[in-house]
């Protein structure tokens, strides 16, 4: 869904992109957060932010992201983190894909290789706990998602300093490459 038709020219075009399978419990953290944020964006009347979601990232997302200035990917994580972390995504040609999905850094690298564009890209890692075949997030994951959502809303409400505001978090957490 794109809300940018009436955006002010100088506003950066921002894409929030959650990925994962909502039919596998906490794997759906990304798409569920996108659904929630989408409603909030509409209510706030924010016009330069688009949202998208899918089961997984894939090569066509290189085309999707080339049209934006800032990308915020959102995914479930089983890393050793608390509620969530955010990292800057750097292009990488590392072959870390499986047969039918690719990583954010791979998408970014492909975007650069084909379209010569490298939007500022970040990955919001949200801690999940269970990934079996059931709809719905665990209580812990929902709590983490709400914390991540508050963080995201804070960023989007102060867009002039969005990149400046993300940077300290990324400095702590490093890169996703």
């Amino acid at each position, binding site marked *: 869904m794109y809300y940018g038709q009436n955006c002010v020219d100088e506003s950066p075009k921002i894409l929030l992109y959650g990925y994962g399978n*909502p039919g596998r419990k906490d794997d759906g953290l990304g798409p569920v957060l996108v659904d929630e944020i989408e409603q909030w964006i509409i209510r706030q009347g924010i016009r330069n932010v688009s949202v998208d979601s899918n089961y*997984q990232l894939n*090569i066509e997302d290189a085309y999707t992201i080339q049209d934006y200035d800032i990308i915020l990917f959102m995914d479930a994580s089983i890393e050793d983190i608390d509620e969530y972390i955010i990292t800057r995504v750097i292009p990488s040609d590392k072959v870390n894909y*499986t047969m039918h999905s690719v990583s954010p850094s791979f998408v970014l*690298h492909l975007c650069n290789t*084909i379209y010569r564009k490298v939007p500022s890209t970040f990955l919001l890692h949200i801690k999940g706990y269970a990934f079996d075949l059931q709809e719905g997030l665990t209580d812990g994951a929902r709590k983490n998602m709400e914390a991540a959502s508050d963080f995201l809303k804070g960023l989007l409400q102060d867009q002039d300093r969005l990149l400046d505001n993300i940077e300290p978090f990324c400095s702590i957490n490093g890169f996703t490459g």
Partner: protein
Amino acid sequence: MGQKLTIEPVTRVEGHGKVTIHLDDEHNVVQTRLHIVEFRGFERFIQGRPYWEAPVLVQRLCGICPVSHHLAAAKALDVIVGAGPDNISPTAEKMRRLMHYGQFFQSHSLHFFHLASPDLLFGIDADPARRNVIQVAKDFKELAVQGVMMRKFGQEIIEATAGKKIHGTGAIPGGINKCLTIEEKMRFLIGKDPLNIDQMITWAQGALELFKDYHKKNKDLIDNFARFPSSHLSLVRKDGALDIYHGVIRAVDADGKRILHDVDYQDYLDYIAEEVKSWSYMKFPYLRALGRQEGWYTVGPLARLNTCDFIPTPLAQKELEIFRAYTGGKPNNMSMHMHWARLIETLHAAEMIKQLLNDPDILEGELVRKGSKTIEGVGLIEAPRGTLFHHYRINKDDQIEMANLIVSTTNNNTPMNTAVELVAKANMNGHEKITEGMLNAVETAIRAYDPCLSCATHALGKMPLEITLYNAAEEVIDVLRSELRG
């Protein structure tokens, strides 16, 4: 001292799979196995749920081919609600077909451009740092752009017909819940360059020419790599045409002799059984008529082109004639020709999409039909990677009390194991050092089948690639992790 080599999980194969290769003291391959950690609890999970939820529920099984599961479930439930298997409305059938051909188009395109082309363009034993789609994008930019846009086009067809990208709801028991809008139809027909169907057909033809040209220059590899005799099974239309959505089951042996004569898939259990083996979670299906040892079969693009009599679209039919002539009309048992068959199907899918977009039935018509309810139904569909069975029985409270699924990759279990064994022996026997090229040869054989290992869970940090080398005493003597391979 003998060695055991483990490749885990297989790169560029979805889900959790590993290959173990046992070497004797002379470094000869003595046993190979493709182990697949397939989720088998899904059938139990669906039990007790209202039957009408199944077409959406089953999409949880797989984030790779949710459309196939969605449609197979809907077809089984058509029978239960009294509308099937042959009586849903023309509008419903055509919308479902459009969704399905969209899926075929994107899935086959992804496989060729993203997974197969690096091996073909750079060579199976090329440096793994170069043998990937990024290098394709650098060295063959136009080809990479085509792959991206073909995949995107197919995905957009799915979104327009299924209603949304995740957990689509387009197909429901007895029909569909929406038609295509005129705007959607025109966008796909004459949309902004390059996202229109004529461009897709042109690119599909270009991909085929690329493969055929490569084949001419690399006949030995393409014809003899993982070549072995196999039976083949697929759906065909009642008149023998290639049909990936509906029809009857046909199987032929390696010489083309019919084994299954166009049987009704509602009776599949009369013809097909599944064997369990201690070392794999994935079952081994076989044709009852031939027994456990001889009854295994191949499904997927190669099988479909081996079983059908013709392709009902002109450009793909022309290509089928060339494909058939190469083996003198006999079934094609060359694993790498799976890529050729897949590209012919890609072209067919594009032609069918165009045909369906020009059909007025997709814009309006009867959406749902229902009749006398029954308690049991089977849905069969050709998923991109092969024949997919969904079988449900409901109780008096409309809850599913039995579900049985045989997925495409399960059908290909024995052929994939056979291919792994052949390639491992051909490439590794007698070699003291196992090279990256040898390992990739094994993976190339598996990738030809485009397996989907039923795992859409991909949370960050969850799927490292690890290759472990054991000696006969099961001591780890070498470990390769994913970052070392890329």
